[in-house]
């Protein structure tokens, strides 16, 4: 297991390096004239050139990248070109918001979709049809529509939750919970729909296996068959889907953070990318890649732990 983790970590580091290089090159292709953007259309060309030189943008792109890399490996992501704030600090301020959402959505999705999926797969009949319809509708509804309806109903009309803003977990737990509940609910609709369908399918497959029939014939209580034997075998594909959902959630987070006015990584990514703030974008890319690598690692370890057959692969 340890060598597996070591191998995956080494591969992750290599991936990180390749992605950082490609991202930096891609970001440098558009001819942005950062100095001009910073100083406005009224500034003289001399001032613009001086600002570009001060930012090191008059050097070849490769030199800029190596300079960035040398600082980044030491954990120094520099300062934002546009706001002058320390990039690491800026991301650290916003990371808890997005992480709250992602972890919250993953927990809600895991619990609800396993409950619904197992229930539908085992009982079939009406509940199965309900889960199927919910899955199709939940998947088909555009995320922004679900989010807007949720805000209108639960925040603007019923006033159960705040419509916008974020309270840190350390500031007040109740405040934090009230500000993340609606965003988590909005993001969960689609992912519960997707994962519950996956769980249902796997459960039905496993239930048809001979060993389940044998267990039934031996008179084991149904709940024991489901939770001890069926779920263990059915959960691997569902976990893989859940991991993918987690990774893909950053895209959904952008939208939800904008509608709820949450100061998270998603809205930050959009705001800084359109301005071409390379130090911030690069740091965001690195954080995301590390996040994805870690999630994949955790999912693989979990699957291996649940199902020894997977360990060999």
């Amino acid at each position, binding site marked *: 297991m340890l060598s597996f983790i070591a191998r995956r970590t080494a591969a992750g580091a290599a991936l990180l390096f390749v992605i950082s290089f490609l991202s930096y090159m891609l970001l440098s292709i*558009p*001819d*942005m*004239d950062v100095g*001009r*953007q910073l*100083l*406005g*259309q*009224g*500034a003289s060309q001399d*001032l*613009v050139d*001086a*600002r570009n030189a001060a930012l090191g943008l008059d050097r070849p792109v490769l030199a800029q990248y190596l300079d960035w890399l040398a600082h980044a490996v030491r954990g120094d992501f520099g300062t934002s070109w*546009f*706001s*002058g*704030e320390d990039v690491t600090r*800026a991301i650290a*301020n*916003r990371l808890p918001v997005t992480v709250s959402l992602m972890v919250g959505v993953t927990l809600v999705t895991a*619990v*609800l979709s396993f*409950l*619904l999926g197992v*229930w539908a797969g085992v*009982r079939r009949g009406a509940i199965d049809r309900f889960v199927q319809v919910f899955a199709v509708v939940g998947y088909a509804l555009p995320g922004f529509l679900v989010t*807007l309806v949720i*805000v209108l109903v639960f*925040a*603007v009309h019923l*006033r*159960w*939750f*705040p*419509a*916008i*803003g974020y*309270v840190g977990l350390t*500031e*007040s*737990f*109740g*405040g934090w*919970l*009230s*500000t993340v*509940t609606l965003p988590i609910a909005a993001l969960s609709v689609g992912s519960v729909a997707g994962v519950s369908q996956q769980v249902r399918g796997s459960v039905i497959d496993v239930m048809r296996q001979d060993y389940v029939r044998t267990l039934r014939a031996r008179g084991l209580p149904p*709940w024991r068959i489901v939770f001890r034997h069926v779920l263990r075998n059915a959960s691997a594909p569902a976990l893989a889907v859940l991991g993918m959902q987690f990774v893909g959630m950053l895209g959904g987070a952008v939208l939800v953070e*904008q*509608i*709820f*006015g949450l*100061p998270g990584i998603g809205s930050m990514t*959009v*705001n800084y990318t*359109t*301005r*071409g703030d390379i130090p911030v974008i690069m740091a965001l890319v690195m954080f995301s890649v590390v996040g994805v690598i870690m999630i994949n690692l955790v999912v693989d370890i979990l699957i291996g732990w649940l199902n020894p057959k997977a360990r060999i692969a």
Partner: protein
Amino acid sequence: MKKSARVAIAALAFLAAPMALAGCSDAGGATPESGPKALSVATMTLPQSLDPKDATGSALPFFQAVYDTLIKREPDGSYSPMLATEWKYNDDLTELALTLRGGVKFDDGTPFDAEAVKANMERFRKGGGAQAKTLNDVKTIKVVDATHVTLELAKPNPAMLFYLSDAAGLMANPADFAKGDALKTKPSGTGPYDLDQNLTFVGTRWTFTRAPGYWGTRLPYDTITINFFDNETAIVNGIKTGQVNAALIQDADQQISAEGDPKVKTVKQEFDFQGLVLFDRGGMVTPEMRDPRVRQALNYAIDRKTMLEKIRQSRGELTNQVFGESTAAYKPELDTYYSYDPAKARELLKEAGHAGGFTLKLPRIAAIVSDALAASLQSDLGAVGVKLVWEDVDAGSAIKRIFTDRAFSGLVMNIGQSSTDWVVVGELVLPGAFNMFGYTDDTVKELLPKIQGRDAEDAKAELQALNEHLVEDGWFVPFYRMTYLHVSDGSVTITPQDGMAVPSIYNYAPAE
């Protein structure tokens, strides 16, 4: 069945638990400081930094909280004392003498005096910020004594008072100038508030707390929080739920949504006009533009009324002039100088020798030119034979393509209508960003000297003649002045600021 029912109840309980919890704690919601003495303002403007040299008009409230300006601009656009108590131009507007307030100190005890004014203005002028150009005409800053400064101008400039009540008049502690970029995130001025570093998250939320020992009149709020949002949907939701106390709403649909809530109080203001600024009157990019008849044809070809109805739900006033209602140059009849007359447009193009039409390429900034606006201009101009081609530019490439590469003949944008005539002239008529090819003509050359050396009211006839000429000669294709809506959750009275879209920080008061 029993078991599945139990599971169902468990699932419901799981769903309901956070709601119940959250319901209990709602009082501690997203805006912790929402008592009567706290103000929470929403904005869609992101300041580049809090260093005065980076200040711009739309980000001014951030700066006003921490810094004072030399001159204060009242809501009606008149000037009143702030850090300067008196000011006087000489007769030909080439010298401005300022008397400074004595006894004002920065937080660290550094006195605010004439040397501080000189240091600030010199730094601002050379600082390379977007507004640095406003001090271009200042030749020397002469320190007379500790409380007297004289600005000697290279040429007459009637707009200096405006500039000193704006970005160029913000006074920071000169002791911080040597500390590199300190002011960017740790602003230090003589203003009514201090930036609370612990409750400030740059790019998201800035919290200002009352500065102890402020020299001037206390503003009604103990803390002011400015929250950044990148969309008006979130702002309007925040206003409806009272999490945001005040904001400016530009989008017509969002305005309607805000007005639908009975608690929300609103004040209308017309500030920005939307229109096509034609830089290329010399025909450098599109040779056809050289002929005034072509520019007039564009003005006749556009169905402004339908555009205003369809794009802004009739929230605005049609206009053909770039001068706003509170300027001396403004003439009401120029708002309707060009009727919607495609036949006349075709005729003018024919007279100019372009009966077969021509192609006009314009940059499209999606935030300003919506799909509806792009399509409507394309079809109106297409109907008279002008093929309008949009080139999409994004926030990153726009400035370079438009202002550095000078790849286009014009630009559709929203431009604020200053209440100071010379500011409008400086922005739109003199060579500069919006007159990048430096175009001028005989009438303009003749009128400018008569305007520049005098007060706007004294030069009213010449200003109106200039305005009339710009309209008749088709310097611009203005569409309409847009109605913006100041909205509050009912707890705040907002007084709009003349010549500025966002209200000054001094213009908020608790509602009666």
